Each structure stands twice: as structure tokens, then as C-alpha cells.
């Protein structure tokens, strides 16, 4: 490619809290319109905001996870704009002195290498209300107005659409681990705007455009790839890029001009006189530090390095914190990592998918799964019986050892008993026996199947196979 491209992201996350960020209205998604409103979030004259501690705590957690410098004194500012989604005619946000600045995120690229993406700042602000438009009127719902929103701004260190897609995915995973947001992009709890510019190599940043309305990480990629190409075509013709905001239209897979920046971007920020500055206390930082968890990319590295998991297995297990925590507790009980990982990503996941429940909601506790592994590893049951047992554990919500007893699933290792059944099976299928004797070893599988059917799968398969082979080949 002739040009060098630069991509930066602005990501908004809705913080999980009981109440809004500057008033005590409930912060609930999906309530009846305009039920969670009060004079503060409706901007009544004289109503004063007061800062929600939980929002500060969660903002600082994200700052910490993004390796930000935490400003000693965080200040709130007014961002002035006139639009009915914000009844005060300004948004309380942070401009000069936000909670966190100058951080970084170690982004894992497709080839497994890491790239440091600098974070410009992390600031706390209030969300706007929702509007529904039709031809002649707009309907307003202010339930969301004033709910806590955290904005994370990256430096333009990303290069292409795919980088940005990975960033959104890994960032989302991280904030879910931190339990600060549910990160649901479709419901808008994680929203992303993307900036891009291109230039000839060595010329630095070009004129940028911003794309809004990207509600999935895939769209982030598509929209940026489209924009980078569009910029290239304009420059190739000797044209000039107009600095503007554009909307991504998924139906046509194109971006459309929304407004030019010059007209709309004079927000006349000034310090919010109604809110005193927040000086980050040692007590609050202590609370933040003790709430930090091992982050997904670190955890993935640990699983690959210390537990010998494959990249795919490690990625699967660290996908959700719930799964990774569960995996860790299984290891703590002494389970072997590869056995744990392959059951977790295989049969356990299959049951969960089919029953449409999460690991947490299922009866599969780490203790029960460890017990299941012990039964298999001590050859009390076969691996296949173990799989059936998993179904039974789900349906009956009982410990595996109890189910083995109740259902009489214990593997038959008594040679005499097995030999007796083998004799019956061989007698019933003389043609197959002849084939095996003639060298068609594949046919043994059929005999094994018959044997398993006759015993309900309870025979130790290795032992059974040996007995069958001995009986056929040994009698030659």
C-alpha cells in the first residue's frame, strides 16, 4: 500500500451501578420510559449533582488496568451543546484533568505478537437520553440521561481495521473481567467511534474522519477498511480529505457524511462549578488495587506457558472470566490441565450449549468434575461412560460417584466375566471373526461395539480389546 494509515478509537462503556452518576435515580436498562428521572438529570434550575462513589471506583479500575497515570486531582467540566437528548444543554464530562491519562494496552495481534497501543485518557461522564424520531416528531426518554459512562480514548497507534477489531474485542473482554460493564454492543453498553487518517510514509498523520454508529467489532473493521480505501482514492486523484463525522451504514456497507466538524465542534468546555474536584485518596486506590484481577491476556499467556495449553484452548478458556475462574479452581483441586481444558472446551461446553445455560448456572461444580476425572483416571469408568455421566449429572444434579453407584456404571475389570461376554459375541458373529483372522483388524471395532452394547459400555475397552484379539489370533 502506498499510504500509511492511522486509526484511533473512542470507546464508551456504560458502567454497572445501582444509581446514575450524579443523582440517585436508578440506572436500569429497559424500564418504562421516563420512570428514572429527577430534577438533577432533567436539568432543573438549582438542582445540584453529586458524584457516585461506585462510578469513581470503576473508572479508576479501568485506569489501572490500562496502566494510566492517575491524576491527583480529577476535575469535571461542562461540554456545551444544544440537543434535546441532554436536557441541561451541557454534558458533565472531564476535559482538562480526567481520572487517567497516558496509559497503554498490550494488544495481541493475529500472529501472536503484541503491540503497545497508547491510551490518551480515560474520563468519566454522563450518558445522554434516548430519542426516537419519526417524520414529524421526536420522542424523548430520559431514563439513560445521567447514567455513568466511561470514555476511553486511544492514540492513533492502530494501523488497520483488523487491529481496531482486535482492540475492541480484547478491550471488551478486559472490562468484562473487571466487572465494570456488561459490554453488550447491541444494547449499546459498549459503543465505539473510530478515527482514521492516511498519509504518505514519513509525513505523519493526515486529515482524519470519524465514523460513528459501529455496534459490533466486525463493523469497526469493515468501516475502517472502507474509510482507508476511500481516503486513498481521494488522495490518488489529488483531492483533499474533508475533516468530518461520518455514519456507517451496514445495509449498504458504506459511510455517509453526517456533519462537518467546524460547525459543530465548539463545545466551549469550562470547569463544572457545581461539582468539587475529586482528589484520589489512598483509601480509594487501596480498594481499587485489591479489586484488580489477572487480566485476560496475562492469563492466556500463563495458561500457555505454565499449563501447556494450546493457543486455541487458552483463548477459549480465557474468553469469559467465569470460565477461567472455574478452570483455575479445577486446577487447584489437583486436576490435570490438559484433561480439564479438553473436557471444558469439548463435552462440558456441548452440554452447556445444548441446554443454553452458563457454567455458573449449571450443576457442574469444579469439585464434581474433579471427581469425574478421578473416576476415569482410576479406570473405575471408561471415558465414554464419563461422557454419559456428564449428561446424567446435568439432568439429576448429583455427584458423579453417587450416580455411578445408582446406575451401576462401574467398569467391569473382572477378566472371567468379560471373557464370558466376549465368547458370546464371537459366537454370534463368526463371519467377522474370520475376517479379523484374515487380517482385517478394522473389523475388531465392530466386535468391540457389540461387546459394549451387550455390557452397557461398562467393560474396560483396553482389556476387552486384548481379550478379543487373544481369542481370535491366539487360537490360530
Amino acid at each position: 500500500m502506498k499510504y500509511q494509515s492511522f486509526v484511533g478509537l473512542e470507546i464508551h462503556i456504560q458502567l454497572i451501578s445501582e444509581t446514575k452518576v450524579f443523582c440517585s435515580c436508578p440506572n436500569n436498562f429497559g424500564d418504562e420510559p421516563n420512570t428514572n428521572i429527577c430534577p438533577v438529570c432533567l436539568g432543573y434550575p438549582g438542582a445540584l449533582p453529586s458524584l457516585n462513589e461506585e462510578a469513581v471506583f470503576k473508572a479508576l479500575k479501568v485506569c489501572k488496568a490500562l496502566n494510566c497515570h492517575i491524576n491527583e486531582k480529577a476535575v469535571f467540566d461542562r461540554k456545551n451543546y444544544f440537543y434535546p437528548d441532554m436536557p441541561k444543554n451541557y454534558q458533565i464530562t472531564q476535559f482538562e484533568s480526567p481520572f487517567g491519562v497516558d496509559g497503554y494496552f498490550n494488544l495481541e495481534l493475529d500472529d501472536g505478537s503484541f503491540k503497545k497501543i497508547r491510551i490518551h485518557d480515560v474520563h468519566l461522564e454522563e450518558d445522554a437520553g434516548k430519542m426516537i424520531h419519526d417524520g414529524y416528531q421526536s420522542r424523548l426518554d430520559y431514563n439513560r440521561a445521567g447514567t455513568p459512562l466511561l470514555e476511553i480514548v486511544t492514540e492513533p497507534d492502530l494501523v488497520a481495521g483488523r487491529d481496531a477489531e482486535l482492540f475492541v474485542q480484547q478491550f471488551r473482554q478486559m472490562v468484562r473481567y473487571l466487572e465494570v460493564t456488561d459490554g453488550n454492543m447491541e444494547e449499546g453498553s459498549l459503543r465505539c467511534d473510530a478515527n482514521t487518517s492516511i498519509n504518505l510514509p514519513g509525513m505523519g498523520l493526515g486529515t482524519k474522519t470519524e465514523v460513528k454508529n459501529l455496534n459490533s467489532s466486525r463493523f469497526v473493521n469493515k468501516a475502517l477498511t472502507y474509510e482507508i480505501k476511500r481516503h486513498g482514492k481521494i488522495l490518488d486523484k489529488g483531492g483533499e480529505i474533508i475533516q468530518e463525522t461520518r455514519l456507517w451504514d451496514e445495509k449498504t456497507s458504506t459511510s455517509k457524511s453526517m456533519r462537518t466538524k467546524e460547525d459543530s465542534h465548539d463545545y466551549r468546555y469550562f470547569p463544572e462549578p457545581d461539582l468539587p474536584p475529586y482528589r484520589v485518596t489512598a483509601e480509594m486506590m487501596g480498594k481499587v488495587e485489591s479489586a484488580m484481577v489477572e487480566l485476560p491476556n496475562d492469563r492466556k499467556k500463563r495458561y500457555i506457558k505454565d499449563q501447556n495449553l494450546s493457543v486455541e484452548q487458552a483463548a477459549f478458556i480465557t474468553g469469559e472470566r467465569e470460565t477461567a475462574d472455574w478452570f483455575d479452581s479445577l486446577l487447584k483441586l489437583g486436576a490435570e490441565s490438559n484433561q480439564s481444558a479438553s473436557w471444558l472446551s469439548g463435552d462440558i461446553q456441548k452440554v452447556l450449549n445444548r441446554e443454553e445455560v452458563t457454567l455458573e448456572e449449571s450443576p457442574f461444580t469444579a469439585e464434581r468434575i474433579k471427581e469425574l476425572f478421578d473416576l476415569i483416571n482410576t479406570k473405575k469408568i471408561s471415558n465414554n461412560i464419563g461422557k454419559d455421566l456428564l449428561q446424567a449429572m446435568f439432568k439429576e444434579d448429583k455427584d458423579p460417584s453417587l450416580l455411578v453407584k445408582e446406575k451401576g456404571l462401574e467398569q467391569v475389570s473382572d477378566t472371567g466375566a468379560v471373557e464370558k461376554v466376549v465368547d458370546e459375541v464371537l459366537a454370534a458373529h463368526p463371519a467377522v471373526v474370520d475376517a479379523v483372522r484374515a487380517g482385517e483388524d478394522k473389523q475388531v471395532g465392530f466386535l468391540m461395539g457389540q461387546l459394549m452394547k451387550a455390557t452397557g459400555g461398562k467393560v474396560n475397552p483396553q482389556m476387552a480389546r486384548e481379550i478379543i484379539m487373544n481369542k481370535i489370533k491366539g487360537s490360530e
Partner: protein
Amino acid sequence: MDKGELVKTAALAKLKLDENEVETLAIEVSAMLENFSMMMEADVEGLEPTTQTLQQENRTRRDEGPIDSGDNLSNDLLERVPEKEGRFIVIPNVI
């Protein structure tokens, strides 16, 4: 104030000004700004800007809703709304 700047500021504030208003306001606003510019004379070298006079930092609250007082604040507020549709507040289309 320069007329161009006045027109731009008015547009940002969603104010419509006709030519006469622009003429008079340009003079009036300039006079107002001149009044305020007196403040520029104060020596603030080395002083931290005063952004609020509450003289207090870290005024926060716990993440808890109000104790249910039995009143119905949101309904009272909605009663003051000029036009509604169900619980939605209705305004002329702004797109």
C-alpha cells in the same frame, strides 16, 4: 465582537438573528465583553484557577437510591411536560 463571530455563536446557541439584531447585538455584546475584560487586568500569576467556591473536595455519595419516600417524582415531573405520548416526552422532529 466581530459580526461573523456573533453569527456563529448565535448558531451554536440555536438562536436566529435577523440583520437588525445582528447590527445592534454586535455593539451590545462588544460592550458586555469589554465589561468582563476588566477581569483580565487582575494579576493571577502563579494562582490556581478557582473553578468552584464550595471549598470542599471529594463530595461524593454512596451508590444507593433514595429511601422510598412514597411520592412519585417521575410522574410529577411528567405532569409538567407540555406534550406526551404515553410516558414519552414529545417534541417537534429535530432530525
